[in-house]
């Protein structure tokens, strides 16, 4: 399949992309290395591009969080200490900051910002349904992540914000979350829902709805919900205006998306789906980062022949080697294992190469991160990964 939008392979680099944009959103299915990639890109930007760079992450591995100085949970933005850069042997041109997303705290902040008065604010925060709904409300995590991004960007505190998106059941959910939130708060449904508390007069349209909803959930529960949403509606204008602004930020020319994937079929299918979704919404696809890619030399023909020979004639090879290596039978076994291991990994490398060729829609920047045999637990490791995708 011919690439749809591929320009010259060298037309761009992650470096150029990050130098030109203010918001870089990393997305992709769970387990592909989004958090690490986002942190690595942000660290590289702080080192090479300068300015104030923030990496906003959702759920980093503990050791990575420690490496970034994120010992305290919550929404606090913390500067990664210059000493950490010194330990990694670099002198950054700019500053690297990191923050974690605390969903509950962010919702509370939102209520604080938009509640019309202290009494309403406290009534909402104390409502038993509030915690339950903010915790479980469909896409509430997605919405709050985008909302927080908007808030930080609008504050003008940073030159560049690199975001790691929450793991969602469906990667496009968070793109639509602000709009869906605005829809929800302006929906007829919500008005229906709050009817009994407002007037107790059922309209013709809402009657069948109520008879069904009543039987399913019981009217007491409906009233509880209605009261909660009535309180919430006092924040309606602020919320909807805000959600619309968040949507605009996602489509802004200063915002770009980096799709992260491995070369396994399921994550890659999701990446492609996501790339199409961005195109549909006219949002900017900046780069695709392919993670945990096996080295290309597993496909080398000469080495393959050597591996095959080790598998089929290990005894002969062992006999031709110096005798002081050890017991010839054991040497032969080791040679055979080395050959088999190579051919095993080659099967996976071939599959990866084929999958990669199928990637139909490719942005200007495609970077491949080799498989790291060790865990990335410090700034040095992040920068090592960053070097692989930067230029």
């Amino acid at each position, binding site marked *: 399949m011919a690439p749809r939008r591929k320009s010259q392979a060298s037309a761009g680099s992650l470096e150029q992309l990050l130098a030109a944009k203010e918001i870089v959103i990393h997305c992709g299915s769970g387990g592909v290395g989004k958090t690490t990639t986002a942190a690595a890109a942000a660290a590289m930007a702080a080192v090479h591009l300068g300015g104030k760079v923030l990496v906003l992450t959702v759920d980093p591995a503990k050791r990575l969080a420690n490496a970034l100085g994120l010992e305290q949970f919550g929404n606090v933005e913390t500067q990664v200490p210059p000493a950490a850069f010194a330990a990694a042997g670099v002198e950054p041109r700019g500053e690297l900051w990191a923050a974690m997303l605390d969903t509950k705290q962010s919702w509370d902040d939102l209520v604080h910002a938009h509640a019309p008065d202290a009494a309403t604010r406290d009534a909402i925060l104390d409502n*038993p349904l509030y915690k339950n709904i903010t915790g479980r409300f469909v896409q509430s995590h997605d919405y709050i992540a985008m909302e927080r991004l908007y808030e930080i960007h609008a504050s003008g505190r940073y030159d560049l914000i690199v975001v790691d998106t929450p793991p969602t059941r469906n990667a496009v959910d968070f793109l639509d979350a602000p709009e869906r939130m605005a829809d929800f708060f302006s929906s007829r449904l919500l008005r229906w829902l709050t009817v009994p508390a407002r007037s107790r007069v059922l309209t013709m349209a809402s009657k069948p709805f109520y008879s069904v909803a009543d039987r399913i959930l019981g009217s007491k*529960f409906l009233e509880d919900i209605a009261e909660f949403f009535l309180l919430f509606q006092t924040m309606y204008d602020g919320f909807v205006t805000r959600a619309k602004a968040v949507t605009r930020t996602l489509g802004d020319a200063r915002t770009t998306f980096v799709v992260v994937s491995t070369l396994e079929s399921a994550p890659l299918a999701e990446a492609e789906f996501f790339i199409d979704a961005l195109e549909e919404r006219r949002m900017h696809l900046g780069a695709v980062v392919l993670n945990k890619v096996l080295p290309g030399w597993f496909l080398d023909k000469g080495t393959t022949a050597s591996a095959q*020979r080790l598998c089929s004639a290990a005894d002969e090879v062992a006999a031709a080697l110096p005798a002081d290596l050890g017991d010839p039978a054991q*040497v032969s076994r*080791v040679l055979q294992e080395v050959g088999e291991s190579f051919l095993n990994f080659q099967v996976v490398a071939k599959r990866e190469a084929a999958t990669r060729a199928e990637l139909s829609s490719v942005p200007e920047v495609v970077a491949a991160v080799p498989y790291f045999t060790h865990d990335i637990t410090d700034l040095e490791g992040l920068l090592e990964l960053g070097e692989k995708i930067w230029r």
Partner: protein
Amino acid sequence: MTDLLDRKLLFVTGKGGVGKTTIAASLALLAAQRGKRTLVGEIDAKGNLADFYETGPTSFRQREVSPNLWAMSMDTEESLKEYLGLQLKVPFIAKIGPLARTFDFVANAAPGVKEILTVGKFLWEVRERSYDLIVVDAVATGHIAGQLAAPSAIQELVHVGLVRDQTGWMLDILGDPAQTGVVIVSAPEEMPVNETLELVDRLRDDTVVDLAAVVANRVLPELFGRGEEEVFDRLDALPEEVLVEAVGGPVRQLLDGAEMAVNMRRTRAVHLTRLREELPPGTPILYVPYLFQRSHGARATSQVAAHLAEELGY
């Protein structure tokens, strides 16, 4: 301990990328192969369960995809329709327009209802005894505890109504370790192990559901046996041309490849040890090796099923 496949309902969960669907598909296949009438249901919207059996797409309607094995995918709206039809005897429900809107309301505004429609459907099938075993390819570790806690949450929040009335029998089945259990799929990497251990705590604290087993997936095989690594080190230390001469071709990348395999295995072994040590004592751990496969299709599913059978002592 109840034999894993003798339970009636297994929720298979795991962090994204660990092979949750592979394990769910393989467990179901194994049960079916062993003569159990098995239903495998997928909850995630991704809808790729069918790829693991190479049969057409699955839907809410259960369909036999191979002998003894039925597959379905969850659709909460369909589940609600079925529920209303069965429970409320509301035959006109299909006709009324506001159903879609009612559904939106129910799903979005009322906490726990979408979850209960999902979990409830499978619990219903258990109650009806339609299958010997139901394997659910459930949501990922971050969401599963909330989903399984829904019936309890509903009981607390909703005091009357038909949904409330349903929670009693649901909790009975969910909380019975002889019938229901969670299988957490993990992998020998830092985050999957973290999430597995966190979920074990959450399941214990927030839900009534028993932890049935943990699957350690993609465990790299040990490349070298006892004493062999020393031999390899000596091989590696030889002048390259000696080795090239003996092999009759390039060897550098053969050695690099072997070193990579050894290092990968070593890094992963640390996480595997942590998993083993920090899980509650007695938790069954099933090890599934990393498979060097061409694809992720039916062939891989049957290979994984064979490894699971071995681990379960069949």
